[in-house]
C-alpha cells in the first residue's frame, strides 16, 4: 500500500457530504480541497495540480458526467484519475462514467475501507503512470541531447534534471554531461593552442624572394631545359 499522501479534490454539492468525506481523508493523511459543482471544480483543477478527484454525479450548474467529459477533452487533465462517488446505483450511470474515463465507481453510502483501498490503488497507478511519463520525457531529453551534440548546439545544463535521477538513466545523463564537459574543455584548449599557431608570412617579401629566383635568366634557362626534358621524356614514352 502506498503512502496516504497527495492532494485530492472532493466535488459534491452537499456540504455535509463534502465535510464528512474531507474529514475522513484528512485523517488518513491526504490534503483535501473541496468544490461544490463541476464548473467550480474544473476551474480549480486548472489552477493547481491535484492527484485525484472524488466526484459526485448529480450536481447543479455542471453535473459529474459533464465534468468528466470536459476533463477527458482537456490534455492537461486527461490523465488525472477520477473516482465517482454517487447515490445513483443504476448500471447505465456506472457504465456511462466508466466509458467517460472514470477510474472507479462507488455508490453512496460507501464502505470507508473500500474507498480508502480504491483511492490508494488509483494513486499508485497514477504515480506509476507519472513516473513512466517522466522517464519517457527524460529519455527524450537524452536523445535530444545526442542530436544537439551532433549539431553543435548542446547545452550541458539541459540534462541537469535527468542527471539527478538515481537510476541507470540518471547515470547515463551524468556520464554524458561529464564527457561533454571534457570534450568542450578540450576543444577550448585546442582552440587556444591552434590560435597560437601563427603562420606569419610576409606574402610580399615571399613573392619578391621567389621572383629573385624565377626572373633570372638562369631560371628561364632552367625552365627551357625542363620543358625540353619533359618533351624528350614524352617522346621516349611514345616510341
Amino acid at each position: 500500500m502506498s503512502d496516504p499522501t497527495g492532494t485530492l479534490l472532493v466535488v459534491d454539492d452537499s456540504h455535509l457530504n463534502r465535510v464528512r468525506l474531507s474529514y475522513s481523508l484528512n485523517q488518513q493523511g491526504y490534503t483535501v480541497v473541496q468544490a461544490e459543482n463541476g464548473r467550480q471544480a474544473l476551474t480549480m483543477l486548472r489552477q493547481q495540480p491535484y492527484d485525484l478527484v472524488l466526484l459526485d454525479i448529480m450536481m447543479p450548474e455542471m453535473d459529474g458526467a459533464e465534468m468528466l467529459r470536459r476533463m477527458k477533452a482537456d490534455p492537461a487533465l486527461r490523465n488525472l484519475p477520477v473516482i465517482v462517488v454517487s447515490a445513483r446505483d443504476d448500471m447505465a450511470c456506472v457504465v456511462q462514467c466508466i466509458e467517460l474515463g472514470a477510474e472507479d465507481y462507488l455508490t453512496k453510502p460507501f464502505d470507508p475501507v473500500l474507498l480508502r483501498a480504491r483511492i490508494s490503488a488509483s494513486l499508485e497507478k497514477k504515480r506509476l503512470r507519472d513516473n513512466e511519463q517522466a522517464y519517457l520525457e527524460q529519455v527524450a531529453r537524452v536523445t535530444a541531447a545526442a542530436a544537439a551534440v551532433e549539431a553543435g548546439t548542446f547545452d550541458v545544463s539541459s540534462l541537469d534534471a535527468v542527471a539527478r535521477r538515481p537510476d541507470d538513466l540518471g547515470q547515463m545523463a551524468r556520464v554524458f554531461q561529464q564527457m561533454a564537459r571534457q570534450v568542450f574543455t578540450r576543444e577550448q584548449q585546442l582552440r587556444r593552442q591552434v590560435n597560437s599557431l601563427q603562420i606569419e608570412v610576409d606574402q610580399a617579401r615571399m613573392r619578391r624572394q621567389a621572383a629573385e629566383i624565377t626572373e633570372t635568366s638562369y631560371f628561364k634557362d632552367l625552365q627551357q631545359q625542363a620543358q625540353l626534358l619533359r618533351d624528350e621524356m614524352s617522346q621516349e614514352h611514345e616510341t
Partner: protein
Amino acid sequence: MAKIISIHSFRGGTGKSNIAANITTLLAAAGQRVAVIDTDIQSPGIHNLFNLEGEAITYALNDYLWGRCSIRQAATDVTARLETPVAGQIFLIPSSVKSGEIARILREGCDARVLTAGLRKAISELELDTLVIDTHPGLNEETMLSIAVSHALLIIMRPDRQDYEGTGVTVEVAGALNVPRMALLVNKVPTSFDPDEVRERVTQTFNCEVAAVLPHSDEMMLLASAGIFVQRYPDHPVTAALKQVVATLMV
C-alpha cells in the same frame, strides 16, 4: 608513362626521407616497380630505412655522377630487405655516406644535367612505373631541375616559423616550373593542434593543397628510421593518411 614524384622540403629535419621511403613502399605494395633516389647528396640517409648499411653500398649516385658507373649499377634492389613482402619491386639509388664523396660534392657541386639524364635512364633501364626523388633541401640547380621534370611534387613542412617563408618561396618557384601536381604535407604536428584548423590555415597561407597533416607520432620516433612505418604499423592513422597522400599525388 612512368611518373616522377619529388619529395622536397625547404629545410632539413622535416621527415622528408621518411615520407619518401613510406610513399615508395606504399606504391610497391600496390604492385608497382618503384625506384627511390636519394639526391640529398650532402646529408644522405634514406638507405637506413631500407636496412641497407652504408658500407654495403657498392655504387652510389655519386659514382654515377662522376662517371664511375651506370645508373643501373648504382641501383640496389631492396625489396627483399622489407619486413613484409610487397607485390611490386623497390630499387634504391643511394647517395654515398663516405665523407670524401660528400666533401667532393660540397666542393665541386654536380652537373644537374647529368643528374636529370640519370633520372631518365633509371626510368627506362629499371622499367619503372614511378621514380621517387628524395631531394636535397633548399633550392639549388639540381633540385629545381628534379622538381621541374616531376609530375608531382610533395613539399614537406613542419609547423615551425623557420619553415614558413622558405616553403612559401618553394611553392612559388615550383609553380613557375609548371609542376602538374603539387601538394603540401604538414609533418610532426603537435597532437594538441586541431589538424583541420592547421590544414585550413596552411592552405590559406600558401594557396596550395594540403595532402595531409601528420601528427607527431611516438611510434614513428621510436622506429627511428630503422624500418618502414607503413609496414610496421599498417593500421595506424598515419599510415592511412600516407595512403591518402599517395592517392593525391598519383591523380
